[in-house]
């Protein structure tokens, strides 16, 4: 049995739902499992949400809000928590790829150099991340680890710069194809034993509509058109436990691998 957590930074139901006819692998997963919207209780800030998702801690508890603090890049060792992989590493085969709670994104037990230091910022780099995360994840799936966590970050950047443009859906379609390759073409699903959590850290909306402004409107790369929405995507397959908040992912994994099921 492999438990696969597939993270998609910034994946948003308001793009996926109206386009399920062309996002066939999202549609197929929704049919195979359960889909819901997570309404975040915490601010939709990527660093904090991914950190909470895999540490089980609230932002007050882990204290990690942004990629930088006082002008310095925050590193893994600056965050005083144990992540799920730290807890499980001596018990099971756990592989972690490209989790963007810090920059460069964090990998564990996997040799992976993130594209653009985890901040892919143009089409060429988005394509490269799509390919490299997919290929590395596919290879890891063939090893049948007990737990695999893998995250794509490109959609976040695409939507910050192009929200409201047709190109956003084009990138969702590209990602949808890769999801198909990872989940169905590898034989990971359908399965009665393998488990999947597909999750985003937040959704997206127009820059002016966002309750929290995560980045300044004008950047040297251009004007931002989209910003984070406090509504995230969740699709699970073969996972019985309910996930209401990102921290519940930690609890589900902890229960799966550490506690006896009730």
């Amino acid at each position, binding site marked *: 049995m492999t438990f696969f957590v597939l993270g998609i930074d910034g994946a948003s139901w308001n793009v996926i739902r109206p386009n399920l006819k062309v996002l066939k692998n999202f549609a197929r997963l929704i049919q195979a499992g359960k889909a819901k919207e997570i309404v975040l209780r915490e601010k939709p800030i990527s660093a904090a949400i991914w950190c909470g998702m895999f540490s089980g801690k609230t932002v007050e508890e882990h204290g990690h809000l942004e990629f930088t603090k006082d002008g310095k890049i925050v590193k893994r060792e600056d965050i005083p928590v144990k992540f799920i992989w730290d807890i499980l590493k001596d018990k099971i085969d756990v592989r972690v790829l490209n989790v963007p709670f*810090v920059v460069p994104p964090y990998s564990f037990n996997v040799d992976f150099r993130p594209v653009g230091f985890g901040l892919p910022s143009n089409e060429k780099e988005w394509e490269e991340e799509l390919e490299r995360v997919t290929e590395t994840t596919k290879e890891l799936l063939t090893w049948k680890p007990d737990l695999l966590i893998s995250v794509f970050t490109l959609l976040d950047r695409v939507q910050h710069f192009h929200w409201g443009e047709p190109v956003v859906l084009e990138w969702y379609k590209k990602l949808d194809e890769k999801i198909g390759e990872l989940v169905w073409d590898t034989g990971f699903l359908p399965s009665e034993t393998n488990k999947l959590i597909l999750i985003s850290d937040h959704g997206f909306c127009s820059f002016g509509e966002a309750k929290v402004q995560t*980045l300044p409107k004008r*950047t040297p790369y251009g004007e931002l058109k989209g910003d984070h929405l406090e509504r995230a995507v969740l699709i699970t397959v073969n996972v019985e436990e309910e996930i209401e908040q990102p921290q519940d992912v930690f609890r589900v994994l902890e229960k799966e691998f550490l506690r006896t099921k009730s």
Partner: protein
Amino acid sequence: MPRRKKFTTVSIPVQLFEKIKKQIENTGFPSVSSYVGYLLREVLVEAHESGEMPFAREDAEKIRRRLRALGYLR
């Protein structure tokens, strides 16, 4: 399950190879390959355990530039 290749080739300068060869004389390492493999594993394990990938100082500056350009660092 596809069969995974166990070894592959990595190129290093001949001069460096010769230096390493000299260095491992009278040690327990049977070949330059085994010594280089050992060193790389050490570096990667250290990097994973500390949570830091092995980035050079100039890479850190590139990361800061990207963070600044995207607005994360003001």
